[in-house]
């Protein structure tokens, strides 16, 4: 009984699905750890960049995918993180690891300030307010040239591997970014599978009902903005630490950066942990891969992919893969159930479900309402 309760609370699905997800994650992790030791530095650098660009997308995923709050200003939050680290590391001469907590704090506070209007305005209007911030940011950086370096950029020393590690700098940077990315993915998973996540999703699905159920809407929204900003800011900090330069013309600091983050989130899957990574891999690597054919064609194909993904599966590639996996599992069950004699079917129920009705073997095994990320938890109209 207690096990069942625990499952319900964390929104567990078919245990085989969870297992498959865990194995997939483990495989990816093993591959991720092998990469820096078997590939040339430029390749390691490219993957490091993907990890970094995934962080703001994770932040957007929390805000937009789980919270239903649209932000087109994450480029500014990325920039706040990057410039805080750059200024502290170069002008104040702080060691890199010391700049990061301070950078996190600054960007969290910025996120809270930016998020404050979200308690009053929603949807398109919120998107425009955040977009104003995103559009202003490069101009502000340009104006504050004496401290930011303007369009020539702020340069700092790139991360160097400590002596004891015996690694090259690119390998060390890669592993640092990998650890931060994993920590952020874990944080996102825990946040969205707990009390905070449920509160956030209930606001997304039906704000009035959420208020009626005792969710503190303003606080939850502003906090979501703050945490989302921290993810983006961490990306900025790591970016400047690994690339050694940040300027007002850098893609991620301009409004185009926000658009890329948004597109990567939609392609990968707005409400999943792996989705942002999948989306960022495509956003970062597809254009250079296709540009060998034709630089203009690359962007057209990327646009087409975006449209196809959004039309075909609103929960992105990660969501589509998850559904495919579930369907395959159900088909297996249906086959098995069909192969067994009728008495055996009722005699061997799945551990978490009641007896499977012979006439409907493919029905969901778990009759409890499934509180999975991305699916509406209240059966009401879902704003898209």
């Amino acid at each position: 009984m207690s096990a069942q309760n625990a499952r319900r609370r964390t929104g567990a699905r078919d245990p085989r699905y969870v297992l498959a997800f865990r194995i997939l994650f483990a495989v990816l992790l093993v591959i991720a750890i092998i990469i820096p030791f078997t590939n040339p530095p430029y390749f390691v650098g490219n993957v490091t960049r993907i990890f970094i660009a995934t962080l703001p997308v994770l932040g957007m995923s929390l805000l937009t995918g789980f919270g239903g709050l649209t932000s087109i200003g994450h480029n500014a939050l990325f920039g706040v993180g990057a410039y805080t680290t750059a200024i502290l590391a170069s002008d104040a001469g702080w060691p890199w690891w010391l700049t990061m907590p301070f950078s996190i704090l600054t960007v969290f506070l910025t996120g809270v300030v930016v998020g404050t209007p979200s308690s009053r305005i929603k949807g398109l209007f919120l998107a425009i307010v955040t977009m104003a911030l995103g559009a202003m940011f490069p101009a502000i950086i340009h104006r504050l040239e004496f401290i930011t370096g303007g369009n020539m950029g702020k340069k700092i020393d790139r991360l160097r591997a400590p002596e004891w590690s015996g690694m090259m700098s690119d390998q060390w940077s890669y592993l640092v970014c990998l650890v931060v990315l994993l920590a952020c993915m874990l944080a996102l998973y825990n946040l969205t599978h707990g009390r905070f996540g449920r509160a956030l999703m209930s606001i997304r699905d039906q704000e009035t009902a959420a208020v009626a159920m005792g969710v503190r809407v303003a606080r939850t929204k502003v906090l979501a903005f703050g945490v989302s900003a921290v993810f983006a800011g961490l990306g900025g900090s790591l970016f400047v630490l690994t690339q050694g330069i940040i300027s007002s013309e850098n893609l991620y600091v301009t409004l185009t950066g926000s658009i890329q983050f948004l597109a990567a989130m939609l392609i990968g899957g707005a409400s999943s942990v792996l989705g942002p990574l999948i989306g960022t891999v495509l956003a970062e690597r597809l254009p250079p891969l296709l540009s060998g054919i034709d630089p203009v064609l690359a962007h057209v194909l990327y646009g087409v992919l975006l449209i196809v993904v959004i039309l075909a599966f609103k929960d992105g590639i990660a969501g589509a893969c998850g559904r495919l996996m579930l369907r395959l599992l159900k088909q297996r069950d249906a086959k098995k159930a069909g192969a067994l004699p009728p008495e055996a079917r009722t005699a061997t129920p799945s551990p978490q479900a009641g007896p499977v009705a012979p006439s409907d073997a493919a029905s969901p095994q778990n009759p409890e309402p499934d509180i999975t990320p991305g699916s509406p938890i209240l059966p009401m109209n879902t704003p898209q």
Partner: protein
Amino acid sequence: MTLKNTALKRLTQAGAIAAIAALTLSACSGRGGGSDAGNVTNDAASDVEQVLTEDDCMDYQASPGITDDEIKLGSTFPGSGPLASIGEANSGMMAYFDYLNETEGGIDGRKVTLVPRDDQYDATKAVANVDELLQKEGVFAIAGVQSSVGATSVWDDLLDQCIPLLMSTVSGSPLDERLAHPNTIDGLIPYAAEAYALGQYAADEWKSKKVAVIAQSGIFGESFLRGIDTIAEEKGMDIVASETYQVTDPTVTAQVTNLKASDADTLIVVAAGTKCPQIFDAVEAAGWDPHIATTFTCSNTTLMGLASPSAVDGVVSDTWLQLREEGDAESDAYFAAVKKFDPNLNAGSENVATGWAQGEVIAEILKQAPALTRLDVINSALNLKDVEIPMAADGVLLNTSADDTTAMETVQMTTFDSDSMSWSFNDDENSLVDLNGVLEKTDK
């Protein structure tokens, strides 16, 4: 259930092993490098002074990217994004190399190829691209990096390994930084030197006394201002007003109004992109009629065409390139080659011609290198003596030395005629400006 789980686990494990095996195989090149250059000496070349020697280099590799029939160069430039027009220069450069390979069979029997990489004017992408060009493509040298931030973000690492960075934009960098990077040859006229030329022409030809300046804020504008300040002091001109604008400013009317109030007789416009026609129009709209001199960044015919014809008639600028007019044999050859090798390219664009000319300079440097090693090419690039290239304007000779990494040090003044919508060379006595040694004055 356990059975199912085991089956699933086995399947996934098999997949995992396959994925790892594939990854390891794909990465079997590992973290090393090598090259097979063959005989790289060039019998036709002359001796060059050894400015940089192997002792100055870390992990020196002499001739990667050179084979018996190829010289492989790499470039990073904005190929897409809002500043993609700058990247046209690299298309021009590639068209020139194609032309060279076809007409002369390349250099010493080796075809010259340029591996392009798009950086969208993002310095960090430029760094990643250069890493990839060196480690994956194994290029011999980097050429034609068209953004200052990009070029100055890679020149330290390239210098450490003694890799040439040829004809790349470091035009805003001060002299001491240039001299600290002997592997880098500037692809344009240094900004400060160009501004000096504009100022000198105003003083000598127009007898200007009171000069007003409008400049884009940031490093670009500042480098030009260094040159204007220097020449103004030398020639006893007063800079009576100086205004800057941000690229994002919607209008420049306020700045132009302030400048007009200074009652200057000459206006120097240091701008780029669509701000150029905006400034020319604002000057005319203010009812002000000073002599106007502008930087090469405004002199693109397309940009001039955006302004009102009466506002840009008689505007003076400068160039180191030949005029390209139909009917002239050399120009026709150029137009035909561009059309043949890159039909989509606009041969009339200044950027394309600049890239073509940069390609010609690179070919000259490679031709006169005693051997196709990175050190010899760097030293060859620092030993250009009165070199003439077909695309350069008459009188523009290329000279470099250990304490002078700028190849082009002469500019030809030009005037815009709005009837024919084209530039013509000025033929007065002040129209060819020698800029040798100017950087020592502007950057002191």
